């Protein structure tokens, strides 16, 4: 029996796990964006604080993912075994690229443009929404793209703490010493990552060329 037949016969579960996987990544990216974008914007003008926060996010990034999942299990409210813990861990990983690119993207806007915007009487809010964010959008999106691809990969490990997703096949295959089962998780995860990268890359180019 080849791999393709295996996946076909188990297409129900492959699909179910893929949906779980996308759900884990989607939820964690949503949280990371909700925290990362406003925090990044708030940090643009606070250089000292920015170094600390980015440093902190950097340290989180260096924690091996399996260890981070493990660390979070005993934490009250967000911890425990299951999807919510995995989502928190994935969001923490996604935070660094989003934060960093929000800061560098906004800081990279031509100072002459900012000076003109202030000098012409735009309020800080108008400057942010009409000038800084649109001009930083390609850089911001690059961060979101990196974060998404990382999340899709790391989310396979979430199965270790019972969060589901395509990692379920991988762990099961490792336990069964069965490559077909491993690949039933690994290949769809890789396809998801490549698809997300291509789609966000195309979107990023369309923004940059505007």
């Amino acid at each position, binding site marked *: 029996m080849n791999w393709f037949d295996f996946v076909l016969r188990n297409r129900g579960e492959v699909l179910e796990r893929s949906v779980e996987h996308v759900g884990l990544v989607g939820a964690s990216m949503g949280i990371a964006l909700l925290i990362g974008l406003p925090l990044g914007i708030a940090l643009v003008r606070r250089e000292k604080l920015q170094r600390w926060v980015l440093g902190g996010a950097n340290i989180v990034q260096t924690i091996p993912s399996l260890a981070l999942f493990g660390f979070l299990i005993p934490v009250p409210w967000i911890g425990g075994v299951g999807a919510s813990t995995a989502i928190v861990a994935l969001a923490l990983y996604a935070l660094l690229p989003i934060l960093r690119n929000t800061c560098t993207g906004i800081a990279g806007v*031509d100072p*002459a*443009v*900012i*000076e*003109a*915007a*202030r*000098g*012409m*009487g*735009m*309020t800080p809010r*108008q400057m942010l929404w*009409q*000038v800084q964010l*649109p*001009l930083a959008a390609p850089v911001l999106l690059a961060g979101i793209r990196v974060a998404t691809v990382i999340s899709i990969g790391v989310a396979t490990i979430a199965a270790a703490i019972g969060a589901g997703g395509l990692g379920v096949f991988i762990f099961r295959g490792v336990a069964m010493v069965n490559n077909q089962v491993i690949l039933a998780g690994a290949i769809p995860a890789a396809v998801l990552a490549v698809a997300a990268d291509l789609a966000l890359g195309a979107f990023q180019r369309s923004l940059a060329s*505007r």
Partner: protein
Amino acid sequence: MAELSDAMQSSYVLQIRGLTYRLPSGATLVSGLNLEVGRGQTLVLLGKSGSGKTTTLKLINRLLEPTEGEILVSGRTTTSWDPIRLRRGIGYVIQDAGLFPHWSVERNVALVPRLEQWPEERIRRRVKEMLDLVGLPADDFAKRRPSELSGGQKQRVGVARALAADPPILLMDEPFGALDPVTRAELQREFQALVARLEKTIVFVTHDVREALFLGTRIALLNHGRLVGNYLPREFVEASEPEVRAFAASLEPGEGSGLAQ
């Protein structure tokens, strides 16, 4: 007499009194500056880089806050104005134009009218009028992006944008400084004609003596944040202060190399 002097004062659109600006580090960029600009006049702030001329400009529209002294715009101190309202009533043109690269020429020019929530139809007419005024026909230029313009054209759009909401005062920070000599001369000539027609009160920063003499109703020479003197153009060329002579020397053949002496 007091009444007369009050009346005299109110004829100034812009008054600068004892203006000092100090950085938190203690460095003084502008020191005890006193200047007035009457309606329809062009005051040129002339000086070397670091003389405090751009700082003075930014103090007028409150991009910076005075450390000491005050600036009166239309008889009111700038600190009593809401800074956003103040800035929308003062046109601002900078060296690199500072056009929004993600907006069309049309949208750039419409900036302040749209912030002021003019009706769309009025904005549309005004933008066309402004583009015609600066010699960029709307049919050809309105839809272009700033990246599709030459340096001179960008600066024209910058002027159109600054004039769009019809502010009584215009601040210009070396607006023609980055242009080639031919384009610069062309824009200076057109700008002078424009100013004569529009009766704007202008503060114009430059380090170019020729430009100062050509455009200025008065020339205020700054050196290390202090006012050296406030001259009519014809007084300037004859003034004896060494700082003035140093600038006037750049008018001589040999371009201020010192060899002319």
